Each structure stands twice: as C-alpha cells, then as structure tokens.
C-alpha cells in the first residue's frame, strides 16, 4: 500500500467522532568514523503509521494515539486507537479539528522523496583524502555524516490532505592530535550534501588545531567571551524548548512573571535581537503545518494540520510570543502559536562579521561548541554544561592560543540580557542538540561576564 492509500483506508475505517492519520515514509544513510577510519555506517528505510482517534464520550472529547511501523493492519490500528481514546477520558486540550488548508500543503499524490548511500559516493573518497592529509600531520579525524529524507502525509476527518518532504543532513568533523591532548571541531548542516565541502571543514579543523599548539591555562571565573553561532544555537534551542505559555501562565518556568501572568511584552535583551521561526527560511525550510503524535503543554493532537507561519518569539529585544496550543490560547484569550523546526536569532542593525568581532576583542575567550547542557534551575533557566573542542584566548584582536575547557553555569535568558554585541547572522549546526534540531541561524554574541564555574581537564 502507498502512504496515501493507508491514510484513506484508516479514515474510511473510523467509527468515531474524528480522526487524524499520518504516515511518515523515511530513508537515511550515514557514515561514522574515528581515528581516520570507518566505525559504523548504514542505510535505512522506514514507515511509521500513526492514527489518532477522537471520541466524545459525553463528558468531553478524548484522544488516543497508536503508532506502528511497516505495513500494519489498518483496521486493527484504527480500532486500537479508538479504544485508546475511550480509555483516556476527556482531553483538556480538546478543540474542533483543523479544517483550513495551510499554505504549502504539498502535492498529495507524489511519491515519497528518498535518499540512499549514494549521497556519499563522492563524499567518502574526499573524506578518505582528508584522513590521509590529517595522518600526514600526525592528527586524527573523527565524525559523522548523515542524510535523512522524511515524507509526511497527513489526512484528517475534516478533509485535510497534507504532505511535506523534509530533508535533513549534517556533517561533524572533530580533529585531535594523536595524543588526544588537542581537540577541535567543525560542523555543517545541509539539505542535500551538494553544498558540503569536506575540504573546507578539514581546513577549518586544521586551522583550529594550529591555534591549539600554544596552551594557556586559565582558572575558573567570569570572562569576556565570544559565543560563536553554534554555541548560541545550543543555548537558545533549549530556551525555545522551554517557551511553553501554559507553564509560564501557571508560574513555573523562566517566562513566568513575578506576581502573575507571563513576561510577554517585557524587554529581555539588551540588544535589539529578534528570535524567530519561519518555515520558508532559505536553507532551513521545515514543515508549514503541525504534526503532533501526543499532546503536551507545547502541542496538541487536536492542532494537527494547523498552519505554522513565520513567527517572532522575541522581537526587538522584547518577548513577543510563547508557544500556545489552541485550547490554552482560547482559555487565556491569547493567540494560538506552534513551535517550528527551525530557529533564527538576528540583530537587524548588525553589520559586523565574526572575524571583525574577534579583531575588536582586547582580551577574551572564543568558544567553539558546548556540551552536556542540562537544566539546573528552571526558575532562572540556569543551565550547566561544558565548553568543548576549542576554547581560544584572544589578545589584542588575535587568537594567541588554546585555553583549558570549563564547566559553565549560565542561563540563556540571562545571557540575552547581558550580551553587548551580535554579529551578522549565519547558518550554523548546533553541537549538543543536532540529533533533534538541526536547522538554525545565529549570530556570534559577545558576553562580558560568562560564568566559567570550574575547570575541566578534558580535551
């Protein structure tokens, strides 16, 4: 059966008040390497079928979700979903199902897009050459390359038939001296690998390893720090994942306002920064409609198919929107919004490049990536984590050596309030979160007093 046939069969089998069914046909290819040699690889194909049934049991509408892979028995799947809804009881997020067709809903009848190991036919030999060059310098390369293609078909009992093709690719290249004492990183996101240059990544790694030849040990403390775009993305993705309006309205996240309500309308950035998402952002395109398998405070199964147009979360430094499913929006008399799968931070007034920010730094630290970021205090959104794969000392506008790694304790919301300069925005690959969130564009940020809580001896 084709994905479209499964959708139609499931909808036809429904015996209850409403149904959403979606099918995700996906394929993937990957290569992974360590110490200048392959470690694992793979080519995968999968199909996920999700049926969400909606049952009005008299006390309110209930929802139940059942998911299967492959070619499930559609009738059994629908029946199981309907029973799950009956067992769940009335849903707090119940709303009429979406009937309006969102923009960009795709060509329903088209076959799913695919990828395969062939995407690496040229990449692999180029990577092999990079291994040879690194080996000649007595350096080792580690990393991962992955390309995924997921085609989602969504059908609803209100008549929606939506389709979206989502390519996702990433390459990470870690370079180390043979004794592992020096370690640096470069990474890039991609839609189709046509824009990936392993030579460029290898050159960046080589440059950073050269910077690392001179070692400077610094103690824990607060430092003027340049956060490159990758680090900014990792911090702000977590802030984005926390932007639940309901939690804020109930007083239990960093966006809650002392005394009641939320902080929308409050200036939270010293700079005129805008944090936004846009399904049509060039190079970061993502689904223009919601696909939700299970409800939470951030999303609702009742909102499947809801349009997800461009939205500002922070505008001109002012918190502008939080993530608010329709049911909570109705209750709060506020606009419904939805999370998208990309994130852009920009200072529209900035013309400075990252190189120029380095050149204008008298003394400070230049980071590369962050790692093991975890929440410490949800009230302030204090996060802990580590610097990783390159902390460099800038003196009089030049990188003069590599510094030890640190553990940091910082809140991304607090950082937004303290950042004193932002570069032009550029596409970047998050390091910590790119398993789950790849599509980001960020500036470099200057923070005058980044809290390096303790020294990490790791390299």
């Amino acid at each position: 059966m084709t994905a479209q046939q499964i959708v139609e069969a499931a909808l036809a089998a429904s015996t209850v008040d409403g149904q959403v069914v979606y099918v995700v046909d996906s394929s993937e290819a990957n290569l992974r390497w360590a110490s200048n040699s392959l470690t694992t690889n793979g080519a995968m194909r999968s199909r996920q079928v999700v049926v969400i049934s909606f049952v009005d049991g008299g006390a309110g509408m209930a929802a139940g979700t059942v998911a299967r892979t492959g070619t499930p028995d559609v009738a059994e799947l629908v029946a199981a979903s309907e029973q799950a809804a009956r067992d769940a009881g009335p849903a707090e997020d119940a709303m009429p199902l979406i009937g309006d067709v969102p923009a960009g809903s795709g060509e329903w009848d088209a076959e799913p897009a695919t990828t395969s190991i062939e995407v690496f036919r040229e990449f692999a030999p180029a990577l092999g050459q990079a291994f040879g060059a690194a080996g000649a310098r007595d350096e080792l390369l580690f990393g991962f390359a992955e390309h995924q293609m997921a085609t989602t078909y969504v059908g609803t009992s209100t008549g929606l038939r939506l389709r979206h093709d989502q390519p996702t690719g990433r390459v990470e290249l870690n370079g180390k001296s043979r004794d592992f004492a020096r370690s640096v990183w470069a990474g890039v996101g991609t839609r189709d690998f046509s824009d990936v240059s392993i030579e460029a990544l290898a050159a960046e790694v080589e440059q950073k390893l050269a910077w690392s030849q001179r070692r400077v040990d610094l103690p824990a403390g607060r430092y003027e720090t340049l956060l490159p775009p990758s680090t900014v993305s990792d911090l702000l993705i977590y802030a984005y994942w926390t932007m639940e309006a309901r939690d804020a309205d109930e007083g239990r996240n960093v966006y809650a306002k002392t005394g009641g309500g939320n902080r929308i309308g409050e200036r939270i950035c010293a700079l005129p920064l805008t944090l936004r998402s846009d399904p049509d952002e060039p190079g970061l395109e993502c689904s223009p409609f919601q696909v939700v398998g299970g409800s939470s405070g951030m999303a609702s199964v009742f909102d499947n198919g809801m349009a997800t147009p461009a939205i500002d979360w922070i505008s001109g430094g002012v918190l502008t929107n939080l993530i608010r499913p329709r049911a909570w929006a109705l209750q709060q008399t506020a606009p419904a919004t939805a999370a998208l799968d990309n994130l852009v931070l920009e200072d529209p007034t900035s013309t400075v490049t990252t190189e120029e920010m380095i050149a204008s730094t008298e003394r400070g630290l230049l980071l590369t990536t962050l790692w093991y970021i975890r929440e410490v205090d949800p009230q302030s959104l204090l996060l802990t984590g580590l610097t990783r794969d390159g902390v460099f000392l800038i003196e009089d506008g030049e990188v003069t050596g590599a510094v030890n790694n640190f553990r940091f304790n910082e809140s991304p919301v607090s950082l937004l309030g303290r950042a004193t300069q932002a570069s032009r925005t550029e596409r970047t690959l998050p390091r910590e979160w790119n398993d789950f969130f790849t599509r980001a564009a960020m500036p470099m940020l200057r923070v005058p007093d980044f809290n390096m809580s303790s020294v990490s001896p790791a390299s």
Partner: protein
Amino acid sequence: MAEPRSVDESFLALPLSALTEAALTRAVDLGCEHADIRVERIRTQTLRLRDARVEAAADGEDLGLAVRVVHEGTWGFAAGVVLTAAEAVRLAEEAVVVAQVSAAVNTDRVELAPEPVYPDAEWVSAYEIDPFAVPEAEKTGLMVELSERLLAADGVEHVQSDVMAVKEQKWYADTAGTRTRQQRVRIHPTFTALTVDRSTGAFESMRTLAPPAGRGWEYLTGSTWNWGAELAEIPELLREKTKAPSVEPGRYDLVVDPSNLFLTIHESIGHATELDRALGYEAAYAGTSFATVDKLGSLQYGSPLMNVTGDRTAEHGLSTVGYDDEGVAGQQWDIVKDGVLVGYQIDRNMARLQGMGRSNGCAFADSAAHVPVQRMANVSLQPDPDGPSTEELIAGVDRGVYVVGDKSWSIDMQRYNFQFTGQRFYKIEGGKLAGQLKDVAYQATTTDFWGSMSRVGGPETYVLGGAFNCGKAQPGQVAPVSHGCPSALFENTTILNTVQEGGQ
C-alpha cells in the same frame, strides 16, 4: 514465583527463519565474511497526566529487520520494515553496497572475537504482569487515582505524572549458526508535585524516587515499591523544601543515597569504562574517557573500598539480557577492583582489535533501524558486606550534606568534571539531619570523588537504580541501564549554590 514466560507467539509467528535464510544466504553468496540478521519488535506505551488528567496516551510499535555484514573487512548495515524474504535479500545486497561505498574510508579490517554458537536459544526477562495485557482504562484509572491523591494535598498546586512501559522482542541469527529469540519488559512510573509562589516568582518540585525497573505492571500494583507511602510523604517534603535555607557554598562531606548515586555511577564510571569511548569511537559525539587502555590494571580509579561490577545478568536489571545483539551470552565481570581499573564493557570487534579475548556482551541496538554499538551493562558499586546503614553513615559526619534523588546531571567529554543536583538535600550537623537545604549542586572530578569515598554502606542500603533512556551513538540511540549501589560517604566535596551560580 511467577510461572516462567515464553516469547510471545505473535512474534514467533513472524517469518523469522525465512528471513534469516534469505538474508544470510545472499550475504554469503556476495562474499561476506560475516552476516547477521536482527528482527525487532519494540512496543512502547506512554501515559502522561497533567494535574491528574490525561495529557497524552500513546501506544507505539516499531517492527523491522536489519542486516549487517562484513564485506572484505568493512562493515555494511541496512535496515527496513517489510518482513519478506525478498526484502531480506534486498537488504543484504544494500548492506554490501554500503560496505563498498564505505571502503574508501575504512583502514581497520573488521574481525570479530570468537563466541560459542547458540543454535536455539530463548530468554525472557523476569516480570509478572505484561503491561500491554492490562486494560488501558485500568492503567489510566490507577494513574489518575494516585495523581489525584497527590494533587489533593495541601501545598501541592500541580502534579505531573507519567508511566512508560516497553516490551522488546528480538530475533538474532548469524552465519556462525547462532539463533536467539528474546523478550524483555521494563517500566518507569514517576510522580512530581509542584508548588508555585506567584508573589515571589519562586516554584519548587519534588519527584518520586522509584527507579525504572525490568518489571511489569506489578511494579505499580504489587509490593516491590510502596507507592502509597512515598506519595504520602511528598507534600511535606515539598513544603520543607520551599522553606529551606539556601545552601552556603563550600566543601562538605556528602552522604549520597543510592537514589542519587546511581546517576553519578552512570556518568563517571559506567560511561567512562565503555571501551569504545576509551578508543575514541565516540570522540566526536558522546566523548572519550580518561580511563584509557594503557591504564588498565594500574589506574587508581577510587578508594580501595570501591568495587564495581558490570553485568548483563542482574534480575530486573534494565541492561539484563540473555544474549547481546552480536549473539554473545550475558556475563558478569569486574570493572573496578579495590579501587583499580580492571575491566571494560566491550563488543566482539573491539575485543578482537584489543586482544581482550571474548566479548563480555555489550553490543546493543535500540531498534532494528539502528546498528548495534557498544552500550552500557548494569554497572554497580558493591556494598560493604559488613558496612553501615545510611543512618550510621550520617551519624559519622560532623558537617555535611545528605543527597537524595536525582535531578540535573552533566559531565565533561572525558568523564572528568561533573555536576549533579538532586531531589532534596539535608544539612548534616553533628551526625544528625538538620533540615533541608535548597539551591544545592555538587561538583567534582571523577577520580578525586571516588578517591574520597571513605565508607560504603552495607547490603541493607543497596538499591538497583537506573536510567531508562541513556543516549549515545550516531545516529542517536537510547538504551536502558541499571546501577546498583549502596549509600556511601564522600569527604570534602565541592558544593555550589545554584542561585549564586546564576549571578543572582
């Protein structure tokens, strides 16, 4: 004792033998030195409540097959979801193509450590009530009842509750002749109470301590864990936390309860002794390890009281299996003995490469869509057979902190620098608990921390804790792991104040 279980007939009814014959025959025909096939069905159910009302009820099943080959010394892996002989053949062919494309970047010829052949093996984990056989209404009803009880308590404004249950079924076969079929069940319920002070903007939470376990629904309804008692205690614990003073940062002696220490073990020992990290396989992602191979047998990991074992055999352990995903039987071995590093967690390829003899069975894939990689065993700190109770540990501390429950965790790329918080912290003064403290985190370096372990609790303090979804590998995978441990005393550990760390 429950009647011994068998693998579900519905899984065994899949065309496992036909798939095996098709895939392995084709792989051999294409010149593969080794090939294996894995068929997996993973059933996952999540029930999540917000303030005693169902927020999400999701039931998912992931069923697929994977073929992995060694072709001219290079790995190749392919996976799909169509369970037909034709697809099995296609996957074998695709795996060979993957190996051929990848050969351009392979310099280490893949060879596997020898393993006995298990031509007809079956293993099922120790659980009593299949959570997937319990009616959904009954499960929902119990969770609502327990949540309502907590929500009704004074001082509790919100309750988050969830339970995740997994049934995992695997078929593994390889060209050496091994054929294994396995089934295991695991479950993880949690309840969290929250209180909010809108006038100050402060909010606090308190979560149950019950660890995830390799058990069935009996975990919630039986006598293994006293849910009623724990839920009854939470409101008062939460009230005490809201009124607790903020900790004065400094160095304290820590008595760490197993409900927290399991996570410190996970991060600073479990991961650090995964051989793939020590060799650099995870260097670009999850990291490496300070416990490198050249230190095996000589690294003083911790105090002489430190004895840590790895196993895939502990009853109800989340990492417990009959056989791993390379056909290796589950085993038990020493990782740290009298404080010295003596062992790693390894798979067949690494065992061969490093001349370590037999694999100790630590290969795992979280679904058919993923390649098996080295994953953590149950890694456990052994109690002192004559050791003290937790109360006796506390009684021996003049100025310290007692740490209970896990919360935030982070550790660096080589497993050196870590920071943990917990569900609750108590001041210890003159050998007695002197009320809760808040805003507490502890930081240490691994060998300093374990070197400062001056007393280990007795068997009565031992609890099998664990993590339900440990992440590693690329593409990312999750694995469930358990860590048994007693309470223990760690001297002179750095305590931070998290509010001050945030610059407030």
